[in-house]
């Protein structure tokens, strides 16, 4: 097999949403693979705990406090990484939120939060990473953690703007790929779209506490583990320079949505 993480050893990776769930699992596997990983999150203390836990690994984890909904934070985060770790080679856009509301009666602030984090924050981080990769002639790799909801609207009455935000990520993946082609850059872009994963996505806006019906639905569906998605991301990153995994959709067996 020509699948190998070797060429990324010692290189710098930025993972957003690193405090829990898929982001944390990715940070862990990248550190095991020997990379210098900067974990961006609002709850940077969680990333610091993760860094301590992984202190014996080949790579190293650094916590950077960043609120992905604030452009200033993102710019500061990238500057810190460049100044302290070096130019970024891998960016994993894993930060994402799902808010407990709907469309017909919904909360504008909640809608705005979803687009600010899932779409705009992702675009800003991506732009900053590409800027650095261009300046340093790095054939880097950007991974967007998308969702099955970015390809098909799931049967879920409280989905509100989440699928729309992920449809945007699907479009952004191909738009970026075309832009990178036009610019003659050998940077790769991959969309990894998971089905239901056991993470803090639902807890973060008190879904199950407020709505017993949602709690019931969520308890009946099959789940993936965060490490299953981290495995997918590592496979994608380990492909040879000429191979671009454009889309990787991962579902739990028996997914009904």
């Amino acid at each position, binding site marked *: 097999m*020509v699948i190998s993480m070797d060429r990324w050893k010692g290189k710098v990776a930025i993972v957003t949403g690193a405090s829990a769930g898929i982001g944390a699992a990715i940070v862990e596997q990248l550190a095991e693979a020997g990379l210098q990983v900067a974990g961006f999150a609002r709850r940077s203390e969680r990333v610091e705990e993760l860094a301590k836990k992984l202190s014996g690994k080949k790579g190293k984890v650094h916590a950077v406090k960043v609120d992905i909904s604030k452009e200033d934070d993102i710019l500061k985060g990238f500057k810190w990484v460049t100044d302290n770790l070096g130019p970024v080679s891998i960016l994993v856009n894993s930060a994402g939120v799902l808010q407990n509301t709907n469309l017909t009666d919904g909360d504008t602030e909640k809608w705005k939060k979803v687009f600010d984090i899932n779409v705009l924050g992702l675009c800003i981080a991506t732009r900053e990473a590409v800027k650095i990769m261009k300046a340093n002639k790095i054939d880097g790799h950007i991974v967007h953690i998308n969702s099955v909801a970015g390809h098909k609207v799931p049967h879920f009455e409280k989905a509100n703007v989440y699928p729309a935000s992920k449809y945007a990520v699907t479009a952004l993946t191909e738009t970026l790929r075309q832009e990178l082609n036009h610019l003659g850059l050998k940077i790769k872009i991959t969309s990894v779209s998971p*089905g239901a994963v056991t993470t803090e996505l639902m807890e973060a806006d008190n879904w199950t506490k407020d709505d017993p019906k949602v709690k019931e639905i969520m308890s009946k569906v099959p789940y*993936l583990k965060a490490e299953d998605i981290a495995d997918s991301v590592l496979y994608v990153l380990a492909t040879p320079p000429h191979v671009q*995994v454009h*889309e990787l*959709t*991962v579902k739990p*067996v028996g997914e009904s949505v």
Partner: protein
Amino acid sequence: MVLSMDRWVGKVAIVTGASSGIGAAVADALVEKGLIVLGVARRSECIEERAKQLSDKKGKLHAIKADLTKEEDILTVFKWAKENLGPVHILINNAGIVAYTNLTEGKTEDWKTVFDLNVLGLSIATREAVKIMKENKINGHIVHVNSILGHQVHNYPGLSVYPASKFAVTALTETLRQEFNHQGLKIKITSVSPGLVETEGTTLNPSLTPERKVFMQKLPILKGEDIANGIVYALSTPEHVQIHELTIRPL
């Protein structure tokens, strides 16, 4: 990482279109991983040649001659596998063709062959594999080798019904997944959709027109083993993880 091919070691895999290109690369990769692989193709002698070269590997490569546009041939393949190798655990629906013709002036025969192989042959083979997996309570894995053209009709002239046949494969992937769910089966289905790969269907096609040859030589291209690697990744996921779609493009 929880990825592993261990649970497939010693098990039977059937790979269609195993004489060259992606099929050959996948068959060989699975033999290296220790599987008993039955390579199916009209040019079975190509598979037999490679089987000789792979004789020192953990697994084994067997060859069987079949035309996958003929239902009787497909049924014979599955019968032979069942009687001589054991119940099938993995089916790689790789056999496929492009008919370089068009819609406005093309021959029906050419169109028919594309659908007979890419869609019907795939569906018949799938049905036979599932039958065996059900009988033997096997949580198997079926891989459809699809195409980026199964998701979007790119602006490549002269492909006629090929994208349509692959759009059908995309739909069949999800339809099959839903059927498995309804029947409570833990069999997995994966669609692997490559961009341009160096095969006898594309750049190594001896009957390419000079214009098409020139057009293709300018494009970035993948190798059969790049797709084989993607398929092995999909197969090595734990039992509860279904890789639904894996789209691989050349940079």
